Structure formats: structure tokens, C-alpha cells
């Protein structure tokens, strides 16, 4: 087993991130409290460099490296760049919030980078063990991030819950993978698929494995009925961490679904099976997510349920089980990550020392306090609700189109009715910001970077909505280049 230069070239961005995590960890030891910003800058530089490297080295076809463990294809490139960008934005948005709570230190940056590395590995996995490795790296980093604020009871409780349920899900996944291995004798994704295609796999065992894998996927996506951890973790974790959990991992989870269900278990007989299972998960997620979100008074919890419903939408694209649908789901994941970042960024913006701004009332009368941020939040909320001309509409359009094209009009109707219910709680946010008088009149303070980035983030929800073609085409090309 020798590694060639081509192998290293393919994993270059991952190596860079790993090395830089170690560097930051060491450098941080020698920094005084006032110099923490060096770690911050290094983390941002790392993410930017990784994204740049991926973009520069991006190649049209599939490159398999590290003896079949790792794959570099357009899908991986697009998602990894998105993950790096999202993680970078998270770090920028978190600065003020983390500083006020004593979280602005080396551990935070390292854990975020480790999580990003885990996602990159997951996205590029060509081997079931690699997939699992990436997932665990991501999950363990996230557990630690949630618990980072160690004197907070809520955060500790959330971390505990997250860990126990996450470990259970990982167990299910691993068990499912072992079944697949038992049925096919392979762990490398293309080889597993080939074995199944040749009909040399025991279908009973395969089916058994498939059920466990779908359950594991459901956990990681936070789809109903495996969603119980989502609201508690979102609410309990420090908002900066919630923002991270709520955005980047969804991109990785999409890749996870693609690698596991589409690439590994893409044989027509199996597709028919997991389509049914995912349909149930999707419909239940849409229903529970949207209805339960109405009852929430805590914004983070509301966004948690809203995430559940968004994952239902994302699954709709996968259910269509054709390249168009996968492209739509990928577009949905990207759009969701973007709007999610903006919405959590807004909570961070309003938060102050000792004040979380995570209740719905905290947004009352925002239009009076700051018309600009109220306008941005308005765009983000309408985007989440899927009202044109914001980008969220096109995301929903794309997945619903895929479902209709797959001949499941009833599913499309269910989806739009659920999004109607969903529109209510997004409208309620707009109502609080625009129709009500402010109860909190403290001035909004944030550093320049956050202001600019948040403005770009909010306006992007409109701008990409006016010209959505390029991002849709990009997602479509990534999918077509990888399947």
C-alpha cells in the first residue's frame, strides 16, 4: 500500500485543516486573553484557504484516492466549499457573543475546525468506514461544542442528551453498515453497489441493514420520529453553537444521504424500499415540525422545529430518486444553510452580555429599533416561509417540482399545505418586528465584520432569489458530474 502524489493532492484541503487545527491548538497556549483574536484570524484563514484550495483543485470527474477510501468529485467540491464558507461565517458571527461568554478561545476554533474536517471527510467518503469516521469526528466535536459553556446547566443537559442519542444513532448506523458488509462482503461504496447490482447479496440481510441505516440517517438529519434531540439541543446550546449545528452539518448530512442511500444502496429494488421509508419520514417531519413550531415561544426552539420541517422538504427531493431531485435537495440544503445562518446571526446580533435574545418577544418592534436589521430578518423569514421573490421559494419550488415529476402529486400537495402552516409562524415573527412596539430599547451594537456579513447574508436571500439560476445550475452540475 503506497500512496502516490495524486492521493495527497486529493486530500490536500483536509490535510491543511488538520495541520492548522494542531497549529492553532499550540499557538493558543502562548496567547494572552487580549490576543485571542490571533486564533480567530488563523481559523478564518484556514477555512478560507481550504475553500480556495478546493475551488482551485476542482476537477470535472471523479478522482478516487487513498486506496478507494476517499473520493473527490464535483458534489464533494461544491459541498465542501459551502461547509468551509458556512463555518467561516459562523466564526465571524459568534465573535461578540462568544467573547461576552468567555467562549472566545482556542478550543472553540479548534472544535469548529475539527467539525468542519469531519464534515469534509464525510462528504468525500468512498468507504463506509470513512463515512463513519467523518461522522464521528463531526459528532464528537459538536458534543464538546455544546458543552463548552460548562457552567450553564442548560448547555450541559443539552450536551448530555445530544451525546446519548447521538451515540445511539451512531450505533444504529454502524450496525446497519455491518449488515451491509455481511451481505456483500464489501465496505467500499462502489464495490458494495456493484455486488448488489450483480445480485450476489442476500436481500433479507440487506433490507435489515437498510432499515438501520435509514434510522441512523433520520437521527442525523433530525427527521421525525428521530427528532427528539433537536429542540432541546438547539435551545440548550450556546446560540453560536446552535447556529453551527443548525447549518453546516445539514450540508454534510445531505452528502451522507447521497453516499449512503443513493450511491451505496442505489439498486432499483432498494430504492423502492427506502423511498417508502423516507416518504414517511418526510411527511411526518413536515407535519410535526410545522405544527409544533407554532406553539413555541423560544425562537431557538421554533427554529429547531422549523429545521425539522426543512429536513422534510429536503427529503422530498431525495424521494424523487432521480438526478433532478438530488440537485433540488442539494439546492435546498444550500439555501437552508444560508437562511439559517442569517436567522441565528440575527439572534446573536441582538444578544448582549447576560441577555440571550432567544425569545420571540425579544424581536418585538425591531423595526423601530433598527429598520435595516428588521428588513433583513423579514427577508430571511419570508425566505424560510418560501414566499417569492426570496430564495426560499425556489428551494421549495425545486423539490416540489422533483416530486411532481416523479408522479407523486399528492406528496406535493401535502408539502404545500404544510408550508402554509409553516408560513404562520414566520409571519408571526414579521408581525412581532413590524406591528408591535419594542419592549427592549437597548441600542444594537456589533462590530463592523458582523454588520457587513449579516447584511450580505440577508440581502443574498433576496438577490439569489432574483437570480437563482446559477446556484441551481451549480447544484445540478455537481450531481450530474458525480453520479
Amino acid at each position, binding site marked *: 500500500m503506497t500512496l502516490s502524489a495524486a492521493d495527497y493532492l486529493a486530500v490536500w484541503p483536509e490535510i491543511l485543516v488538520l495541520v492548522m487545527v494542531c497549529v492553532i491548538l499550540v499557538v493558543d497556549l502562548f496567547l494572552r486573553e487580549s490576543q485571542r483574536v490571533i486564533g480567530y484570524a488563523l481559523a478564518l484563514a484556514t477555512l478560507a484557504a481550504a475553500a480556495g484550495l478546493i475551488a482551485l483543485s476542482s476537477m470535472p470527474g471523479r478522482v478516487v484516492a487513498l486506496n478507494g477510501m476517499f473520493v473527490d468529485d464535483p458534489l464533494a467540491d461544491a459541498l465542501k466549499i459551502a461547509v468551509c464558507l458556512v463555518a467561516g461565517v459562523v466564526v465571524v458571527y459568534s465573535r461578540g457573543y462568544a467573547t461576552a461568554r468567555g467562549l472566545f478561545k482556542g478550543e472553540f476554533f479548534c472544535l469548529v475546525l475539527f467539525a468542519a474536517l469531519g464534515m469534509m471527510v464525510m462528504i468525500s467518503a468512498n468507504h463506509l468506514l470513512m463515512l463513519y469516521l467523518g461522522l464521528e469526528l463531526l459528532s464528537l466535536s459538536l458534543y464538546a461544542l455544546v458543552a463548552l459553556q460548562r457552567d450553564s446547566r442548560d448547555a450541559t443537559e443539552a450536551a448530555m442528551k445530544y451525546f446519548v442519542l447521538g451515540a445511539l444513532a451512531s450505533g444504529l448506523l454502524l450496525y446497519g453498515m455491518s449488515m451491509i458488509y455481511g451481505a456483500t462482503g464489501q465496505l467500499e461504496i462502489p464495490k458494495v453497489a456493484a455486488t448488489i447490482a450483480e445480485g450476489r447479496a442476500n436481500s433479507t440481510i440487506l433490507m435489515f441493514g437498510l432499515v438501520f441505516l435509514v434510522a441512523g440517517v433520520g437521527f442525523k438529519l433530525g427527521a421525525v420520529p428521530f427528532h427528539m434531540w433537536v429542540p432541546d439541543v438547539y435551545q440548550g446550546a450556546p446560540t453560536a453553537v446552535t447556529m453551527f449545528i443548525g447549518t453546516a452539518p445539514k450540508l454534510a448530512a445531505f452528502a451522507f444521504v447521497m453516499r449512503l442511500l443513493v450511491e451505496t444502496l442505489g439498486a432499483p429494488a432498494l430504492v423502492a424500499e427506502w423511498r417508502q421509508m423516507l416518504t414517511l419520514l418526510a411527511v411526518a417531519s413536515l407535519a410535526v415540525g410545522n405544527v409544533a413550531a407554532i406553539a413555541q415561544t423560544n425562537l431557538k426552539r421554533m427554529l429547531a422545529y422549523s429545521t425539522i420541517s426543512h429536513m422534510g422538504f429536503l427529503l422530498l427531493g431525495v424521494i424523487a430518486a432521480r438526478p433532478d431531485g438530488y440537485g433540488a435537495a442539494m439546492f435546498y440544503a444550500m439555501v437552508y444553510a444560508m437562511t439559517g445562518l442569517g436567522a441565528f446571526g440575527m439572534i446573536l446580533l441582538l444578544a448582549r452580555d447576560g441577555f440571550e435574545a432567544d425569545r420571540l418577544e425579544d424581536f418585538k418592534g425591531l423595526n423601530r429599533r433598527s*429598520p435595516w436589521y428588521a428588513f433583513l430578518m423579514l427577508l430571511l423569514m419570508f425566505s424560510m416561509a418560501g414566499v*417569492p421573490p426570496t430564495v426560499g421559494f425556489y428551494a421549495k419550488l425545486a423539490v416540489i*417540482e422533483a416530486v411532481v415529476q416523479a408522479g407523486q402529486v399528492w406528496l406535493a400537495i401535502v408539502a404545500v399545505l404544510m408550508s402554509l402552516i409553516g*408560513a404562520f409562524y414566520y*409571519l408571526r415573527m*414579521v*408581525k412581532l418586528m413590524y406591528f408591535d412596539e419594542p419592549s427592549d430599547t437597548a441600542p444594537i451594537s456589533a462590530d463592523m465584520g458582523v454588520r457587513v456579513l449579516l447584511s450580505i447574508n440577508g440581502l443574498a436571500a433576496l438577490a439569489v432569489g432574483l437570480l*437563482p439560476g446559477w446556484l441551481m445550475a451549480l447544484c445540478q452540475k455537481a450531481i450530474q458530474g458525480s453520479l
Partner: protein
Amino acid sequence: MPILTLVIWVPIFAGLAVLATGSDRNAGTARWLALAGALAGLLACVPLVTGFHVAASGMQFAEKALWIERYRVHYHLGIDGISLLLILLNAFTTVLVVIAGWKVIEQRVAQYMAAFLVMSGLMNGVFAARDALLFFVFFEATLIPLFLVIGVWGGPNRVYAAIKFFLYTLIGSLLMLVALLYLYNAAGGSFDLEDLYRTPLSMAAQTAVFLAFLAAFAVKVPMWPVHTWLPDAHVEAPTGGSVVLAAIALKLGGYGLLRFSLPIVPDASHALSGLVIGLSLVAVVYIGLVALVQADMKKLIAYSSIAHMGFVTLGVFLFDRLGMQGAILQMISHGFVSGALFLCVGVLYDRLHSRQIADYGGVVNRMPVFAAFFMLFAMANAGLPGTSGFVGEFMVVLAAVKVNFWVAALAATTLIFGAAYTLWMYKRVIFGAVASPAVAGLQDLEPREWLLLGLLAALTLFMGLYPAPFNAVLEAPVSELLAQAARSKLP
């Protein structure tokens, strides 16, 4: 020159410029800038009028550019006579609304004016779009500014009204979206209206699509029984919001029926015309009676709007040249008349802060000029010959007689009910003894209000006395529509 693009985007960018003036310290700047923007929007429509070929069939001023490659969606614009009239009505109403809000709106002036300008551009987009997805985007986007206008500057129950308005209209639109996606696939991957017009569809598919379209447009029109959002929205909205809602927003529904239901699913439209005619007659008769008993002036006018829009849907689904042309004229006339009536109520409300009929009486003693204007608009609402209100109603009733006598007889009751509720309200508000010291202290119209009501009065009379130019513009598109509706699309 891309004239239609200008017609759409000039008001929108003007709105954004107004928004940029910021807080109420610059309210004056915001007002003048908004007026300039509204006038610029109207001015942008001038080439549409001068360059329009009345006799030509098909779409004029066409523009086409690829917008979303992935779904082959085009930024495809074009207008015919129907769109032209509605765009002109819209641009004109926007100017009125800006002037109407000049003094009344004191809080967040820039946002108020900007919302109307943006909305105006979006509505123009709806009337000019030749691609179903583009249409849908404009159609839905108009909800956002109107939602904010009702919710921010509305009356005491504004939150309820705004959310009800939004969700009611959203549900219909979402069903339409599914139908559009179905059609997109049936047409082999195109949202272009021309392609959708050509796509053959089975009767079952046509029926389903028709019902989805009806869900979207019936809520907008609004037709009985999905009309209940309208009185709430009207009552709570500020005067400008009511005017735009009545004059323009309701027309989106009628326009949608003409552009989508009839040509895309002609067989289902014929088969289910009885349903629509039935619902329209319920609107005309029952809602007319409901209007009679209202104690709130705005609510009364809102119900009268529903009854009048019942005439529009009735005229459209008679599949008769006279009826369809009458329906479109009725839409335009209703834009003038109901807009004017809401402005009249606004004039009173600004002075006394009450919309209750019971709080008024003897207003003519203090406001004779206003009473004269109000009289004209009340008569137009009742359908008096010589006013614009008569033309459309008369044509629709004539067409109905050709189709079925009893339909015509029921439809004609509107002339009685319309006169009854409008004139009875007029009598209670304007005539009689001076009701209270507050009424005794009323001041007659100021120049700004004179201008608004004068312009509308002139148009109402012009259209009533000389409807020929309006009819001429509608001739070609109505023939084409009827031809499309008569062509079976069954495979």
C-alpha cells in the same frame, strides 16, 4: 427600449430610493420622492399608450430573456389590451395613493410610500408576465408589501386582518403552484404561457388544474364563500391600502381567470362554468343583501366590492364576447369607483376618526362639495347610466340574457341591491339633521382631496359617457381569448 421592464422596475427602484431616506425626520423628502416615483411610473406607461396597436392581436412590447436556465424559465413580458388597461389603472392609482397618504400617514412615512411603490411595480409585473413562473413570483410577491401596509398602518384589529389576508391568499396560490408544476411537466418542461396554451390535457387533469387555479383566483377576486378575508382586510387597512386592495389587488384574480383558466383548461372551464356562475350569483345576490345591513362604511363598500366582482366572474364565464368585454370594463370601472368610495370614507375618517354610519348625518350641511363628489361615486357604484359603473354591468346582463334568462334576472338584481345599499348609506351619512357637534365642526375638502376626487370623477364620467376607446382596446384580445376558450384541448 425595454418599455415593460421600465414600467415594472421604475416604481420598484423608486420605492427603494424612498426607503433609503430613512427615518421620519426626512418625511418630507420621502413624500416628494414617492410622488416623483409614482409620476415617473405613470410616465413610463406613456409609450405603452402611444405605441399600442389597437387592432393587432397577440402580445405587444414583447421582451424575452433567459432567467432560470435549469427550468427553462424566461423573463418573458408582453401585453395585450387587457393588460394595458390594468397597468394604466395601476400606475394611475399609485399616484392617487401617494397623494392620499400625504398628510394622514405621519409615522414611518418612507416605509409606507415605499411599500406602495414596490407593490405597484410588482402588480405591473403580474399584468405583463408571459411566463407562468414569472407571473407566480410577481403574484406572490405583492402579498408582502400589502401585508405590511395592513399590519403596520392599519386599525385596531390589524394583526388579525393582515395574517388572515396573507394565509388565505397563500393557500390558493400554493395549490396553483402545484398545478403549474404539473403543467410544466405536461408541457415538456416549459412555463411559457404560449406553450401551456398548446398543451393537450385530459379532462381529469383539466378539472384538477381548473380547481387549483380557481382556488388561487377565487380567493383573490374574492368569490363567495372564500371572501371573508376581504371585509376584515379593508376595514383594518389604511385608506391607501384599501384603495389599492380594491382597485388593483382584486383584479389579479379576474385577470388570472382570463389568462390562465380559460385558455389553459378550456374544456374544464366550460364544464365547470355552471359552478362559477352559481357562485357569482350568490355573490351578487347574497353579498348584496349582506352589504345592506353593514354599520361600518368601509365594510359596506367591501361587501359591495365582492358583489361587483361577482359580476366580473359571471361575465367571464358566460363565454360571450359582450359578457367578457363587460367583465373587463367592470374591473376597470370598479377600480375607479371603489377606489373613490374608499377615498371618500377616508376623507370622513381623517376628520372624525369613525367609520360608523351612525356617527354621521347631515354632512352635506358642512361639506357640500364633498357631498357632491360622494353622490357621483355612490351613483356610479349603483350603476347609474352615464357613469362607468353602468357600462360593464349592462353588458354582462345583456350577455346573460342571451345565455339564460334566469341568470340574467338574478344578476340584474344587483341594480336594485346596489342602489339600495349605496344610496341608503349615502342618505344616512350625508342627509338628515346634523348628527353631532363633531359633524357640525367638519371642514369641506382641501385642495389635495379636491384633486384626488376630481380626477376620479372625471374618469368615471368619461368612461360612462364614452366607453368606445376602452372597448376598442379590448376587441382583439377578447376575440383571441374566446377563440382559445372554444378550442378543445382534449387529447
